[in-house]
C-alpha cells in the first residue's frame, strides 16, 4: 500500500502550485468579470454580462480584436518559420556551431520590455541604428520612417518574432537531435535530395513540437503588451491598439477592474477557440 501512495504525495506540491497559481486566478478572473466591484469596501455584486456588454459596445473593441489576431498570426508565422530555419542551421555539424547555438538563446533571455526599447531605437526615424547603418553604407540618402500607420502592426511584431524565433529554434533543435541518423543514411542511399529529406523525414518528426511552438508563439503574440506599450503606445493613430492595451486602459487607467477582467476573459476565450481550431486542422490533416 505504501508503495502506491508515495508517488502521489510527490505530485501533490506541484498540483497545489497549479491550483493556486493557475486555476484559482482563472476562477477569480471570471468572478471579477461577472461582478460590479466597489473598491472602497472591496465588495462584489453580481453583474451578469454587463461588463462584457460594455466592452463589446466600445467602438475600439472589434478593430482591436482583429489587430490582435493579426499580430498573433505575424508572431506565430514569423517566429515559427524563422525559428525552424535557425534550428536547422544550428543542427549542422560544423566548427563553431556551439557558439552559434549559445547566441540563439540571447533574445529569449531578454525581457520583452527591453526588446521593445532595443528595437524602438533600431527603428528610430531620427537617430536609429538601422537608419545610421543604411546611411553610412550609402544605401539611403535620407533617413527613413520605418514605423508608419500602414506598417506599424508588422514592424512592432518584429521584436516579438525575434524573441519567439529564439524560443522556437531551441525547442526544434532538441527535437531535431532526436531524429535517428540511420533514416537519413537510408534516404541518402535512395537518392533523396536535401529538400525531400526535410519534407519527408525531418518535418514529420518535429511537427508535433513545431506545432506546439506555433501555438505558444501565437499565444505570446496575442497577449503581447510590453513591446507595444514601449514601441508605439498603440499608435500611430490606433494602428497598434491591441486588446492588451485596451485591457491596461480599462483596469489601470480607468480603474475599472471588472471590465478589464471581462476583456481578459474574452481574450482567453478567443485564444482558446483559435488554438483549438488550429489543432483540429492539424490533426485532421494527419489523419
Amino acid at each position, binding site marked *: 500500500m505504501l508503495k502506491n501512495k508515495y508517488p502521489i504525495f510527490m505530485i501533490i506540491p506541484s498540483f497545489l502550485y497549479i491550483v493556486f497559481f493557475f486555476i484559482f486566478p482563472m476562477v477569480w478572473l471570471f468572478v471579477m468579470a461577472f461582478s460590479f466591484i466597489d473598491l472602497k469596501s472591496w465588495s462584489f455584486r453580481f453583474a451578469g454580462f454587463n461588463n462584457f456588454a460594455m466592452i463589446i459596445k466600445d467602438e475600439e473593441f472589434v478593430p482591436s480584436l482583429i489587430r490582435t489576431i493579426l499580430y498573433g498570426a505575424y508572431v506565430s508565422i514569423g517566429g515559427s518559420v524563422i525559428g525552424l530555419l535557425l534550428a536547422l542551421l544550428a543542427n549542422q555539424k560544423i566548427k563553431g556551431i556551439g557558439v552559434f547555438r549559445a547566441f540563439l538563446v540571447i533574445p529569449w533571455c531578454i525581457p520583452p520590455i527591453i526588446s521593445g526599447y532595443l528595437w524602438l531605437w533600431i527603428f*528610430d526615424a531620427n537617430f536609429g541604428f538601422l537608419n545610421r547603418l543604411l546611411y553610412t553604407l550609402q544605401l539611403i540618402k535620407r533617413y527613413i520612417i520605418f514605423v508608419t500607420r500602414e506598417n506599424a502592426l508588422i514592424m512592432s511584431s518584429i521584436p516579438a518574432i525575434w524573441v519567439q524565433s529564439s524560443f522556437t529554434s531551441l525547442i526544434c533543435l532538441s527535437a531535431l537531435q532526436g531524429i535517428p541518423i540511420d533514416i537519413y543514411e537510408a534516404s541518402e542511399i535512395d537518392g533523396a535530395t536535401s529538400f525531400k529529406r526535410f519534407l519527408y523525414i525531418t518535418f514529420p518528426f518535429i511537427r508535433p513540437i513545431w506545432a506546439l511552438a506555433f501555438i505558444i508563439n501565437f499565444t505570446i503574440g496575442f497577449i503581447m503588451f510590453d513591446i507595444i506599450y514601449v514601441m508605439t503606445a498603440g499608435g500611430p493613430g490606433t494602428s497598434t491598439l491591441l486588446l492588451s492595451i485596451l485591457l491596461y486602459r480599462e483596469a489601470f487607467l480607468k480603474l475599472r477592474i471588472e471590465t478589464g477582467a471581462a476583456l481578459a476573459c474574452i481574450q482567453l476565450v478567443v485564444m482558446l477557440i483559435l488554438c483549438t481550431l488550429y489543432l483540429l486542422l492539424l490533426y485532421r490533416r494527419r489523419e
Partner: protein
Amino acid sequence: MVEVKKEEKKVSRRDYLKYTGAAIGGLVVGGALGYVLKPTEVIEKTVTAPGVATTITKMVTTTVTAVPTTSPTTITLTPTYTLTKPLELYAWDYHPETIEEHLAAFKEQTGISVKLNVLPYPGYLTSIQSKIMGGIQIDDLYVQNHTQLKWYNAGWLHELESFPESKKIKSDMYKEWVTKYTTPDGILITLPYWTGSYVHMINRRIMEENGFEYPKSLEDIYTQCKKLSEKGMKAPYTAYWSWQLEESVVEYMVGEGVDLFDEKGRPLFEDDPNAKYVLEWMYRMYKEGCTSPTITTDEVSAIVTAWLNAESYICNWHSYFIETFNRSGEGPERGNCVIPPVPPSSTKKTIQIGDCYGMFGRPQDVMAAWELLKFLGWKDRKGEYRVATTWAYKTGLLPPYKDWWEDPKHKEALSKWVDFDLLKTYFEKYSAAVPFRVNILWYFDWVVYMEDQVKKMLVGEVSPSDVLKKIAEKAKEFLS
C-alpha cells in the same frame, strides 16, 4: 487446490488525480460563488465634507500631549507614535538616492524610520494599484495628480483637511494652485511633489540664426517650424503626444480661450471655433512636417535627444525640462534653452502641471504618516522647504509656495539655468488652473477616448469637426 487471489482494489494514479482535482476545484468554485453571492451592502460613494472629523477620531489611536513652550501664544504639540515597524513610502524611480537622503534627514529630525519602496515610473500606476488591491501596507505614496480623486473615492487616500496645518499649507500656496490638491468640495487630499508650467522651450541659437522672434501665437509657431522643416530639420516641433497628448491638447485649448468643461462636467467646446482651430492647427503641424513624424509614438529619450542635438527647435513640455536642456542634458545644444516672455497663445495662458504626495487611506499611524507627508510636501521640522529646495536645485522640479519663490537665495541658485523672474511670472500669472483635470471623476476615462480620436485625426482618419463632435458626445455619455 487452486488458490484464487483476490484482486487488490487499486486506485489508479489518474483516478486519484481526477477526483482530488475535482474536489479542490469544487471547493474553490464553491468558495468563490459563496463569496460573490453573499448579500452585500450597497455602498454609496460619498466625499467627506470639511469639518466632519469622524474618520479621523476613529483612526487616531495615538495620544497627543500639549507641551507649552515659553511663548504664551504658541503651543507645540508633541505627538507620540505607535509604530512597530518603519513607515512604508512608495515612490517612482526618479532619483531614489535623493529620496533616501530626504528620508535620512527626516529620521534625524523626527526619529521615525521610513522604508523606501521604489517602483518603475512607466508601470507605477499598474504596480501601485495592484499592490493596494493586494492589501500590502502603504503609509505614504506618490500620486499622479489625475488619479487622486478616484483614489480618494476608493478609500486609498486619506483626507488631509482635518490636520491642523492644512489651512496654513493651502494659504502658503499660490491661490491658483490650491485646487490641484483638493477635491471639488475643497478638501485637501494631497500635497505637492512637483509643480510646473507647460512651456514652449525654444532653442535660442536656432531662433537667432534664422532671424525669428519669440513666437506669440500658434500661427507663429507653425510659420517658424514650417521654415525649418523646409530647410531639412527633422522634428522642428516636439511634444510628448504619445502618452501625454491630453496635456498638450488642454494647454492649446486653454491658450486659445476654450472652456472645455463647466463645474458640473458639461462639455462646452463642441461648437467653439477656437477648439476647432486648435485641432486643425495640430493636424497642419503634423501633416506638413512641422512636428516629428513619429510624434505620436516618440518616447521621452527621443524627444530630449532631438532637442539637444538640434533636430528640434521647440519642445512643448513640462518646465523642468529647462533644467535638462540647459544644465544636465548631454548634447551640443545644452545651454541654449529659453522660453517666450509670454506663452504663445491668444489668451497668454498656459496650464499648471504636477504630481503629488498622498497619505494612504489606512496608514499604520496617521500622525507619523502626516509628519512624513508634511516633510516631503511642505516644510521640515525646522520650518524650511528642505525637500522642495533640493528638488528644485537638483532637477528643476518646483514648488507652488509663494514664500519659496520670494526667497532670494533660490533666485540666485536657479538663475544659473533659467530666467528665474520669468519662470516666477509663469507660475504667478500665466499658469491657469484646470480643475476639471482633477475634479471630474470620469475625466481620464474620457481622455482615453479623446486621445484615440485626436491620434486618428492626425493620421487623417477623422476630421477635426468630427473629433469635436465625437468627444463631446462621449463626455455627455459619461455625464448621463
